Each structure stands twice: as C-alpha cells, then as structure tokens.
C-alpha cells in the first residue's frame, strides 16, 4: 500500500498549495470584494476543465531573509482549460501570496504558459492582481517583466491576448496589458497606473485617490486603456466568454460560425436616420438592424463614443463594425476616435475579420487642443489602417460624408471593396452652410439682403451636391441603395469577397504613425 501513501502525500501537497497565502490572506481578499485566483479561473473556465501546471514551483531568492519564506506557487496560478468548449491558456496572479508580487519564478511560470499559447495557437488570458515587482528579487524581477512584454509583442496578431485587471496592476506591470488586444476592468477592483497616488503626493504635491487616478471608470472613459467595463467579476467573465465566442482562436482560423438569424423586427432600418443631416440618432440602432439577431458586441463603449466599434455576425460569420456615432460629438473624427478605429481595423485585419464601415460624419473636430494633441498624426492612423487592411472592406455611407472624413472612413480611394450609399448620403468637401459661405462669399456680402442670399445659395448648393449621385457618377460609389436593402447587399458582398487576396509590396514592415 506504498502507492496509497504517495497519493495521500500528493493530495496533501496540492491542498497546501491551493490554500495560496493561507486562510487569513484569503479572508482579506474576499473582504476586498475579490475572488481568489483559482476561483476566478474556475468561474471563467468550463467546469472541471482547468489543468494546473507548475503548482510546486518555488522561488530561490536568498536576500532579505527570503530563503525562509515559502510562497505557494510563487504567487501565480497557470494552466490550460476550456471556455465554451474551446481551449485557452490562462494565468492568474494570486494576491494572497506575497501580494501577487512578481519574482523570477513567478514570471517564468507566466512565460511558460505564454509560450504554450503561442505554440498551440490558442488564446491567452492573463488575470492581473499584483502589487508589482518583488523588490527583494531586484533586477531578476525586472527581467521577468521584460520576458513577458517580449512575448506579448511577438504573439500579437497571432493569438488573441486578453488581460483582465482584477486588482492592482501598477508600475511596469501595466505594460503587459497595454500590449495585449483587449483589457477588461471591473468597478472598484481594477487599479492601473504607472506611478501611484503615494508617489504623486510626495513628489508633486497632488492628492488623488487610486480610483480617480487609475480606476476602472478612468480607463474606460478617459485614457482608453481598457476595452470592457464591468460592475462585478462575474459580469466581466461573461464579457470575456462573449468576446471569445466572436473571435477566432488564432490568425489562421475563422471564428466559430453560428446559425444565421435575421435582425429583430424592432429595429426598422428605414426609420432610424433623420433626413436632416444636423439631427442626431444612435448608429448602434442601424448596426442592430443589420446584424444577425440584432446582437452587436460593442468594444470601448465609453471612450471616444463618437466612434462605435465592435463585432456582429452576418449570416453567422463575425464582422468588425467601424461606425461614426452622430449622437456623440456629431460623430466627428478626433485624436481619440482615430486611435480607437485604427487599432480595431488592424485587429480585424490581423485576425481575418471583414470590416463593415457605417459612415455619417461632418469631418474632423476643430480646436487648438486637438491640433496641439496631434490630430494630424493620430488622424493619419485611420488612413493607414484602412489602406493597409487586406480583409474584405465594405462601406455604407448613411448620410454625411464630408471632406477628409469621407476619405478616411473606408472610402473607395483607400481600397474599400464595395462602397454603398443610401439616398440620404451627401458626399461633399464640407456641409452646405460652410461651403456656400465660401463659394458665394462675394454674392452674399454684396446682396441687399445677405441672409436671404445666403439661404438661397445654401439651398442651391444642397440641391447640387448634397446627394450621393455626384460621387456615384465618378464610380466612387458602387451603388445607391435603399436602407432596407442594406443587409442583403452586404451579405452578397461578403459572399463574393470570401476568396479575396491582396498582395502588398514586399517589405519588412510599414511605418504606421504611432
């Protein structure tokens, strides 16, 4: 019965490790409203699918009395498992063990699972909950971060990389999430910053709370570092599952196809967009009137809301939507919305997801702050991303398409495969008021009734240019379509684009303006 003895010993060892930092530390973690690392993994993954590795790894730090300290699993849990039946690699930092601090062996475990993910071509999920570098381990700890950042970069565009911030993630540690594709944050739990409130207070004399400096709302509304905001860890895990269901496991695969479903009847595509180009509406209603089951999965909902991005399915196949949002800032392009759209376009291109652009914008946002923040450089990212993307690119001009904005938003000139326009589309250099004021300046100022003359000239301009037919006459638009025809025409365009192949000139890599 020697074997039984060994089995019992193994069970005992496992149980010890699974207690992480011990009962007290776990109580503290729970009191903070947080799950433990293993609970998080088991909640996110399919039941009983998690296989843990490197459970018995120990650090070998000697300085500062570290030799006496036993840190179970060295403060991180790694393994493989399934999400909705599909394999993923996962790591979760264990805050109950030395505050989840990152030492050399901790980092080696993360690196091991990252290497697996890249080799096996499956998504990588990283749950961050760590006080930062393990100071006692010095430069070894920094080396560990460096190895992680390098792998994040090399895996970028090959496998989806998801970062979940469920605790502090401070200092250098923030750069792993920043290099990944999607960052998930939870209200009152996530904290991300380079320099914490303590140092800011000491050095700069500015007092700010952790939440106001780098909480979940800050990163989903102000900085744009986070892509998904949730009110609880459970809601966050549901968002991750939904995302994983819509994206491919790697850059050589397609997302799992679902049964095609028509949009819900409640979304009447012909009744959403007001004819008057100065009136707002919610472009997400148009998306929902187009995609399967009216199911649109929005990304970065609260940051740069003048641009709407996200995934929806067309006859079961995932498509990426890039849309101006007239309800917010009239749907203008600016520094943030350009960054938002450009990165998403590149994501879709990297993972072979067709891009559908819904366009309705008055142009770029004027302002000293925008110019000085580099709207030229940032705005250029959209042009670059659309031009470079070789996936099927379909554009529908719903209403306004003025000036530089017209060119930027997936125009024919940047090699959109199909450009459609609704009869309400206005493709012009600028809006009628602005254009008439410039073209007819002399007539207006010299008229006996300048206001009446302006009104007449604006009307004249509207009749001549505020329509899709001038652009259609040049072939810049392939077809003027009724709103009700949109879904079927897009489905057809996607069907004929399935085998699309574009060869770009041979180069090491381009130089996008980032």
């Amino acid at each position, binding site marked *: 019965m020697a074997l039984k003895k060994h089995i019992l010993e193994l069970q005992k060892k496992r149980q010890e490790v699974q207690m992480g930092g011990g009962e007290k530390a776990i109580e503290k973690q729970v009191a903070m409203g947080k799950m433990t690392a293993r609970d998080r993994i088991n909640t996110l993954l399919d039941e009983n699918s998690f296989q843990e590795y490197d459970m018995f790894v120990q650090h070998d730090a000697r300085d500062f009395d570290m030799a006496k300290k036993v840190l179970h699993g060295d403060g991180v849990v790694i393994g493989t498992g399934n999400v909705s039946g599909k394999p993923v690699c996962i790591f979760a930092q264990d805050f109950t063990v030395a505050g989840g601090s990152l030492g050399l062996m901790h980092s080696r475990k993360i690196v091991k699972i990252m290497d697996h993910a890249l080799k096996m071509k499956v998504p990588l999920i990283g749950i961050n909950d760590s006080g930062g570098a393990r100071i006692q381990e010095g430069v070894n700890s920094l080396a560990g971060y460096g190895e992680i950042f390098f792998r994040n970069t090399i895996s970028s565009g090959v496998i989806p990389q998801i970062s979940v911030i469920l605790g502090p993630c401070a200092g250098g540690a923030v750069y792993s999430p920043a290099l990944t594709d999607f960052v998930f944050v939870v209200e009152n739990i996530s904290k991300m910053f380079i320099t914490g409130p303590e140092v800011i207070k000491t*050095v*700069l*004399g*500015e007092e700010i709370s952790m939440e106001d400096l780098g909480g979940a709302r800050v990163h989903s*509304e*102000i900085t744009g570092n986070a892509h998904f905001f949730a009110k609880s860890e459970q809601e966050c895990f549901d968002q991750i599952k939904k995302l994983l269901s819509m994206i491919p496991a790697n850059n050589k695969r397609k997302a799992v196809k679902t049964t095609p479903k028509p949009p819900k009847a*409640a*979304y009447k595509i012909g009744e*959403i967009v007001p004819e008057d*180009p*100065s*009136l*707002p*509406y*919610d472009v*997400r*209603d148009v998306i*929902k009137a187009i995609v399967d089951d009216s199911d649109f999965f929005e990304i970065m*909902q*609260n940051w*740069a*809301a*003048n641009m709407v991005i996200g995934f929806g399915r067309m006859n079961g196949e995932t498509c990426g939507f890039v849309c101006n*949002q*007239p*309800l*917010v*800032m*009239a*749907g*203008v392009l600016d520094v*943030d919305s350009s960054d938002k759209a450009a990165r998403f376009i590149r994501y879709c291109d990297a993972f072979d997801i067709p891009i559908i652009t819904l366009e309705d914008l*008055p*142009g770029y*946002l*004027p*302002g*000293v*702050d925008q110019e000085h923040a580099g709207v030229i450089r940032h705005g250029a990212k959209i042009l670059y991303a659309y031009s470079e993307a070789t996936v099927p690119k379909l554009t529908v001009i719903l209403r306004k398409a*003025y*000036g530089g904005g017209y060119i930027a938003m997936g125009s024919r000139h940047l090699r959109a495969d199909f450009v459609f326009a609704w009869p309400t589309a206005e493709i012009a250099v*600028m*809006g*009628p*008021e*602005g*254009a008439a*004021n410039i073209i007819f300046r002399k007539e207006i100022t010299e008229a006996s009734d300048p206001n009446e003359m302006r009104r007449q000239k604006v009307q004249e301009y509207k009749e001549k240019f505020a329509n899709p037919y001038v652009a259609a006459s040049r072939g810049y638009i392939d077809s003027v379509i009724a709103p009700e025809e949109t879904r079927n025409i897009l489905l057809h365009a996607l069907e004929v684009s399935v085998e699309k192949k574009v060869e770009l000139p041979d180069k090491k890599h381009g130089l996008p303006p980032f």
Partner: protein
Amino acid sequence: MSENTKNAAGSDKPLQKLNINGDEYLTTFTRKYENRKKWTPPNEKELVSFIPGTIRQVLIKEGDVVKANQPLIVLEAMKMMNTIYAPFDAKIKSVHMKTGDRLPKGTLMLVFE
C-alpha cells in the same frame, strides 16, 4: 427607438449644438470635450511653473532689477533642483510664491514689469 437613443456615453446628456466648418449639428458632448482646456496665448511677462514641485529658494524680491540669465528661483521637482533663470533683462513687478510652497504645474510664480 431603442434604449440607447437616450444616451450614448452611458449618462443622460443634453443635446447641444456643435459647429463644424460652418454647419451646426445637434449632438451630445463627451466629458473630455467639456473639460478641455481653453487656449490662451502665452504671456511672456508671466513666469509660470513648467513642472509641479516645491519652491526651495527665492533669490529675488519685488522691485528687483534682474539681468538675463540671472538665477531667480530654485524649484525642486522629481528629486531635481531646477534653477530658473531670468529670460531677459527686467524688473520684478510682483512675486507670487515663497520658499516651501508646493506648486502644481502652470502656477504663476512671478510677473516681470
């Protein structure tokens, strides 16, 4: 219309007018846009902190006549002592800080005549 039409950015925002190149649009504003700093041209007679920090030394007083490149203030910021020199020959009209003051970025420190 769906529940989304009420607001796009997650809050109940009023519709406002935004002028783009001469045409006006009815829309909502983002918090970032509402909080943006309005541009004011720089005034070369005003010396403003270029970095947040603590005043360690004030080497001049009101009414002093200073030469270009003469040290005026020592500002400690990010563990560095930064000496601030006079940009041109001038008379100090007024002084707006004293040793030990902690200043945020962009605080008026002194005015030249």
